[in-house]
């Protein structure tokens, strides 16, 4: 037996104190009576007392000593160790998307949690529990915990994911635990049938339920004709499925189609409608099944603003204006350098061979052939370097997202320059072209938080205009300067959507399908949104105080729509042993009960002596 709080045994000091008090307090009442004859005579009529009855006079003291002892023990919180009275359990809880499927008595995930609770409840005191949750990530919820209530509490807070996780990491953890204790019981609570499972007990919580899913949806829109195509699958038996087409603003389908599908086969469908416009298109299987999340598919119509306001500050703006115009349908204003006074209201400012006093605060900035440092630009201009013939700029081999986006589709043509301006960036820029490690064309974010592209040479003193890569590069730079918030709106759960962060973006708020709210980082050019849930994510990007709202849809992973998935193996290597671990018995309750009994007995003795005899 051990004690959680051994200092509680200091309470035993109370025993000698109690005895001392008893001795001091025990005083015979002196009394003079007429004659003691009868009392003395009564001695002859006393029965011979047994040793126990001799204790009757001090039974109250004995009870009180026992009470003090038990109180001390209770404070010390005794724990009795029972050899091999408990077991070690390792639960692996499948949190995949298919665990959301509804069975007759709840979702599979809820059933699995109940089964784990049953195992915990039936285990011996002192058992150790390890719970590994395999969802979006593999998470060890608790490891070797001996507190069943805490384990059940933490278990109750778990929710299934919508991903298709890999249990290999969890099995590695289980292997480590099993190697340390071959007596440990490993249990996987899942809906997957494992073809082999050595040293692991599979608790399959699935049953034969029907489920349909829709996938691979896309649409074409021409004139007023909308054509939507996709696939449906019946995962259990053949079925005739009605697929409704819902457009934004409609609560009932604008069109529908019946599809006959065989079990497990991808059956294509096409549904059409006439509409003057829409912001989203949704197809849904009308039949109910065990998993609702995979019965619909949504695509949002991202209408790109093709008009970009641009200001070119240059004494010779023709070349740049034509370059930008060829890349994008832009509304371009030009102004001579001498007349520029810090105008605002443009999405893109191009300063050609001109050094502004200050950078604009509301748009992307291109600095072309700047021969002086600009406050807030993030780099300083050192000097101009000329070549007698020409120099070839070195194309960046960076794999950063910015470099990849800006050099996308370029062939790597050699850019020759006869002179360039040596710049020294002190902010974090992405170099696209350089010479002798000096950045010549580079992009990044300036001190105002705006995107900025720098050409460190005069475009007219290079061959860039005749290169194939030039219009591609300009197109990439224009895309970079007028970023779309998202490239596409249909994803699959587990994907990561890249959000283009617009200049002067104040915040990006994301409302998930389950109602979770999060905010994305706005300091970079791109923000990454992990799509862990199934449904529509609402993205609110606030730019200069004005909110811009976009939606993306995250569909269920196709493999998670299968009601009875099969996997190859969940093996743990080693020889299992019938080993128990030391169990524990918490004696606190017993001590409290004993204390109550002792107090009751002492009280009865007191009443007996005080009242009954008189």
């Amino acid at each position, binding site marked *: 037996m051990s004690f959680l709080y051994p200092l509680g045994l200091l309470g035993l000091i109370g025993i000698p104190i109690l005895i001392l008090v008893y001795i001091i307090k025990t005083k015979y009442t002196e009394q003079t009576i*007429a004659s003691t004859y009868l009392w003395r005579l009564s001695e002859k009529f006393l029965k011979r007392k047994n040793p126990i009855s001799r204790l009757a006079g001090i039974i109250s003291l004995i009870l009180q000593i026992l009470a003090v002892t038990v109180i001390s023990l209770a404070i010390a919180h005794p724990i009795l160790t029972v050899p091999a009275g408990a077991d070690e359990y390792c639960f692996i809880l499948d949190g995949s998307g298919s665990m959301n499927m509804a069975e007759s008595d709840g979702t599979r995930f809820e059933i699995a949690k109940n089964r784990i609770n049953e195992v915990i409840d039936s285990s011996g005191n002192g058992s150790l529990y390890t719970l590994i949750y395999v969802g979006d990530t593999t998470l060890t919820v608790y490891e070797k915990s001996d507190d069943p209530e805490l384990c059940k509490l933490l278990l109750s807070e778990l929710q299934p994911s919508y991903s298709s996780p890999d249990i290999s990491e969890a099995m590695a953890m289980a292997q480590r635990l099993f190697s340390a204790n071959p007596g440990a019981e490993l249990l996987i609570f899942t809906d997957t049938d494992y073809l082999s499972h050595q040293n692991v007990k599979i608790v399959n919580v699935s049953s034969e339920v029907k489920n349909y899913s829709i996938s691979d949806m896309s649409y074409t829109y021409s004139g007023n004709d909308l054509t939507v195509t996709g696939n449906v699958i019946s995962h259990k038996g053949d079925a005739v499925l009605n697929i409704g087409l819902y457009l934004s603003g409609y609560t009932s389908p604008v069109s529908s189609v019946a599809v006959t599908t065989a079990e497990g086969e991808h059956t294509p469908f096409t549904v059409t409608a006439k509409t003057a416009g829409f912001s989203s298109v949704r197809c849904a299987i009308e039949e109910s099944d065990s998993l609702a999340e995979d019965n619909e598919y949504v695509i949002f119509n991202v209408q790109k603003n093709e008009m970009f306001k641009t200001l070119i500050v240059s004494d010779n703006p023709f070349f740049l204006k034509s370059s930008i115009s060829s890349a994008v349908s832009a509304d371009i204003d030009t102004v001579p350098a001498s007349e520029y006074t810090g105008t605002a209201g443009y999405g893109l400012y191009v300063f050609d061979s001109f050094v502004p006093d200050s950078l604009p605060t509301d748009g992307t900035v291109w600095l072309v052939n700047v021969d002086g440092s600009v406050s807030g630009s993030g780099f300083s201009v050192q000097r101009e370097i000329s070549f007698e013939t020409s120099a070839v700029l070195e194309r960046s081999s960076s794999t950063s997202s910015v470099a990849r986006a800006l050099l996308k589709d370029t062939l790597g043509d050699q850019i020759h320059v006869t002179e360039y301006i040596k710049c020294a960036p002190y902010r974090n820029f992405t170099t696209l072209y350089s010479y002798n490690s000096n950045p010549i064309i580079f992009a990044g974010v300036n001190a105002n938080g705006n995107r900025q592209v720098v050409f460190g040479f005069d475009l007219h003193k290079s061959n860039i205009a005749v290169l194939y890569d030039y219009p591609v590069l300009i197109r990439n730079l224009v895309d970079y300067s007028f970023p779309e918030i998202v490239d596409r709106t249909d994803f699959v759960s587990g994907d990561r959507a890249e959000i283009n962060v617009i200049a002067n973006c104040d915040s990006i708020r994301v409302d998930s399908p389950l109602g979770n709210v999060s905010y994305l980082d706005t300091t970079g050019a791109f923000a990454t949104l992990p799509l862990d849930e199934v449904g529509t994510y609402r993205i609110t990007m606030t730019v200069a105080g004005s909110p811009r709202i976009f939606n993306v849809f995250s569909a269920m992973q196709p493999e998670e729509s299968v009601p009875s998935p099969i996997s190859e193996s969940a093996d743990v290597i080693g020889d299992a042993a019938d080993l128990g671990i030391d169990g524990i018995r918490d004696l606190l309750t017993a001590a409290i009960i004993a204390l109550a009994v002792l107090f009751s007995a002492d009280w009865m003795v007191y009443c007996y002596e005080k009242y009954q005899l008189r």
Partner: protein
Amino acid sequence: MSYFVINEELLSQIEMLETLIRNNVAGMFGGNHRSRNFGSSCEFADYRDYADGDDTSKIDWNAYARFEKLYLKLYLDERQMHTRIYIDASRSMEHGDAAKAEQSIRIAALIAYLSVAEMDKVSVYVIKEGAAIPVVSNIVGKESYLASIGALNDVVFDGDSRISDAILPSTVGYGDGMSVIISDFLTDNDYENALNHLAAKRRDIFCIQVLSREELNPLTRGKVHLFDSESEGREYRRHVDREIAEAYKKALAYLTGKLRDMCQARGGEYVLVSAEDSISDVFFDKMIGTGVVK
């Protein structure tokens, strides 16, 4: 310490009780007066075997002729009796509220009155230490009784009392009446020899044991150290519980039973009286009820 036990109220009460028995019953102690002793009156009582030295004039020759054996005819003796009352005047009788002492005096006065009413002679003694000290001697008649019985108020209850030591050397008479001993009999001292002596003297023995309510039904519980009022050396220290209380009751039953047996074995009577009983209760319940008064 003087008591005011003998007062007009008590005396009138006693007189009334005496009147009641005179009008309704035959009388007390055999009336006026057939003693239990055989004497020389004309009334035949019994036969007994002849022994050497017996008066040959009392041999029943008719019986001899019939049985060829000498029998002596016995006749009841008829004479004035002498009632001797002994009051235990030890401290145990007076301890506490003196209820036992007062009850003893009341009972002595009652018995004395009943005796004088029968024209018997009455003497009252107090037993102090080892002596029987006369308080009232040889009173005859009610006038004499009323004149002298008040002396009982002045009896001092103190010290020890040794009944045998007091009675044995004293004059107790022979076959001439009743000897009444009033005591709590809660003593280690001997009193059996006194009873034997009285029986040998053909006295009618009447023991009246007076005990207080606490002595009859003690309420003492818990840890007690009891001291004897008569002797500091006699003490009792115990944790009195139910077992001891039961043992006490057994001891009390043993003592009273022993005393009763002693008296009855010697042709005497015994009554147990509570110190808190009224004199009429004592008279009717104890004396008439037990047949002491007929």
